[in-house]
Structures are given as C-alpha cells and as structure tokens.
C-alpha cells in the first residue's frame, strides 16, 4: 500500500500541508515561550533564531512533527545508534575489504551510506548551525559540571567519555536502539519493546549517575 505511485503523491501533498502548519505551530510555540520568559518584549527584540534556548516543550513538539515527515516521506524513523555501527563497518571495510561481510552483523546491516547515516551527519550540521546562530558555539573539552565535581584533567574526562561511548555503542546495538530509535521513535508508535528499553536506559543511567556524583 505504501509504495503505490498515487499514494506517493498524496503523501507528498499531505507532507507539504503538514510542513506549513507545523512551521506555524512551532514559531507560535517558540514565540509564546519567549514572551513567557519576557525575552521578546525587550528593546533588542531577539528573533526566534538567535535565542540560545527554546522551551523544551517547543523543541520536543518540533521533533514529534519531524517524526511525521520521516514516516511520510522516507518510510523511516529517527534513530542514531545504528549509523555508528555503519561507520564502524565502513572503517573495517577500509582495513579488511570485503572480508567485513564475514560478520553476520554486517551482512544483516550492510555498512553503506544510507538514509540513517545521512541523518546522523545532519545532526552534527544542524547542531552546529543552531549553536552558531545563537552564539552558543564554543570549543570545550571538559564540561563545567565535570570540572567542578571531578576535576580539570582532560585525560580523565576523555577516558571516561570513551568508556561511556564504548558501553553506549555495545548497549544500543544489543537493545537494537537508542534514546532516539527506541526512546522517541519506538515509544511514539506505542511499541512495548521501546517503552521497556527507554525505562532500562534511564534505570541504568540514573543508577550510575547517582553512584558517580
């Protein structure tokens, strides 16, 4: 049903209409949130684009609306962790050539550039654009909370971040999704495994955070 050409036309038409409405809703949300905080009433009148932070609700609604388009136009879902595995596979292919296909995981998930990989690249670009536009962009190695509670040492922060990344990489593939793929895309489809995964992410995360800090 999803691949019929006439259906494709109606999906594009629906997407166009939704995009227009979504844009209006989002601008209204951000504007309302800004007025709440008394930001837009100032003489400088900063625009929506130069505000450092949007209301988390506005950002969340925006992501929810974005998810409609991933389903409508790309028959796909917002997710990030699988594309790290794709990248790891692409690097392994450079080293070992086609032998990479000896691994079942890479046969099931071919290490090739696809929609999800472009999405991950887009996240880096989009965050950069957001930070640049609001003046929030700055090079930082040790986050301030870490510096205050643990210390200024760069090596320790990077080592712990690497260990965290390692576990995040293993765990996200093990659970077949991350805070985006399960936590947002799966839960919004009311999938049981995604709700369970999201709960486990936070149980493990809160438990570990309370031990560290």
């Amino acid at each position, binding site marked *: 049903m999803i691949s019929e050409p006439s259906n494709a036309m109606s999906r594009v038409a629906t997407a166009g209409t939704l995009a227009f409405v979504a844009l209006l809703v989002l601008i209204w949300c951000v504007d309302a949130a800004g007025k709440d905080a008394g930001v837009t009433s100032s003489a400088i009148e900063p625009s929506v684009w130069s505000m450092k932070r949007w209301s988390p609700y506005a950002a969340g609604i925006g992501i929810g609306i974005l998810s409609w388009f991933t389903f409508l136009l790309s028959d796909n879902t917002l997710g990030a962790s699988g594309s790290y595995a794709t990248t790891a596979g692409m690097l392994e292919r450079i080293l070992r050539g086609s032998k990479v296909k000896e691994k079942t995981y890479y046969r099931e998930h071919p290490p090739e550039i696809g929609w999800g990989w472009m999405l991950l690249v887009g996240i880096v670009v989009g965050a950069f654009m957001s930070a640049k536009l609001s003046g929030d962009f700055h090079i930082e190695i040790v*986050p301030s909370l870490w510096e205050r509670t643990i210390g200024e040492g760069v090596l320790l922060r990077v080592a712990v971040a690497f260990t965290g990344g390692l576990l*995040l*990489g293993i765990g996200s593939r*093990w659970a077949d999704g991350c805070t*985006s793929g399960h936590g947002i895309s799966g839960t919004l489809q009311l999938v049981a495994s995604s709700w369970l995964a999201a709960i486990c992410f936070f149980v493990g995360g*809160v438990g570990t955070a309370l031990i560290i800090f």
Partner: protein
Amino acid sequence: MGHKMAQLFLGLVMGICFGFLLQRGGVTQYEVIMGQLLLRDWTVLKVMLSAVVTGMVGIYALRIPGLVRLHKKSGAVGSTVFGGLIFGVGFALLGYCPGTLAGAVGQGSMDALFGGVLGMLAGTAIYAAVYDPLERKVLHIGEFGRLTLPQLFNVKPWSVIVVLGALIVVFFFILEYAGL
C-alpha cells in the same frame, strides 16, 4: 538512483532539523543530560515526552488513510533489558546519548568527539564481533516480539494514546508546578 539520492538528501535535511532542535532544546549539553540522570533537571524528559505525544497522535492519524506504516522493533528480555541497562551505564559515564552525542560534536564539545564518538565506534565494532554467540545464547531470552501497548493491554490504540497523552500532560503540569 534518482530516488535513492533524493532519500539521502531528505535524510540529511531531516538530520539537520533534528540536530537543530536537539541543540536548541538544550539536550546536547552535558550538564542538562547529567541533570536529568541526577533527577535535578527534567529538560530531557520534557523534550522526549513532548515529541512522543506529538508524534503518536500524528503517526496514528496518518495511519488512518494508510499514508504511513509502523516500524516496530522486536523485543526480548535478553536484548531489550540487558542491552538497555548497559546503555544506561554508558549514558551516565559519557553524559550524551548517540543522537545528542552527534549534536554535541556540532556545538564544539570535544569530549563528545574524541571520547564519545571514538568509544561508540569501538563499542559497535565489538558488538559486531561478538554478535553471533550473543544472538545464539542471549538475545532471544524471554522474547516477546513486536508487541505493542494496545496489544499488551488488549485495547484500541486510540485508548492508549488518549490515556498516555493525558498522563504525560499531567506529568508536565506537576513538573512545572514543582518548579523543575
């Protein structure tokens, strides 16, 4: 080929929107994520649950005329719970999750790039290397498949959407009332 290129382009554009919203929402900040995991700052759940409410209403509405189809992930205690808990430990050590990690790189956080991204690449490579025995022995323990909440509770999807949506909105009011 043209279709494939168009999809790659769409992926990039949607990623840019996603990254922009994550950064503006504040969830690419180490402090915000750790604040959530320490239960002091509820920004992460506000962003996620607003997205869930908006997304579920839209996706289930678009399903009525058959414009979208669901992409349900299969679940099992051996994969979802074990993997999810390992993920949680990594989440707290790193202070970013895979999506916000990419966003943090874009905003200039170098611990995300040199620690997190390299760690994730190593972690996913390790997972691919141990996938076979894991798949045989662990991943299918307590499997429950592509179950949905409406199936689990034996009710219509819209009943779940209304109840869940109401609970989330009430939760938001409690958070705001408590000044969190």
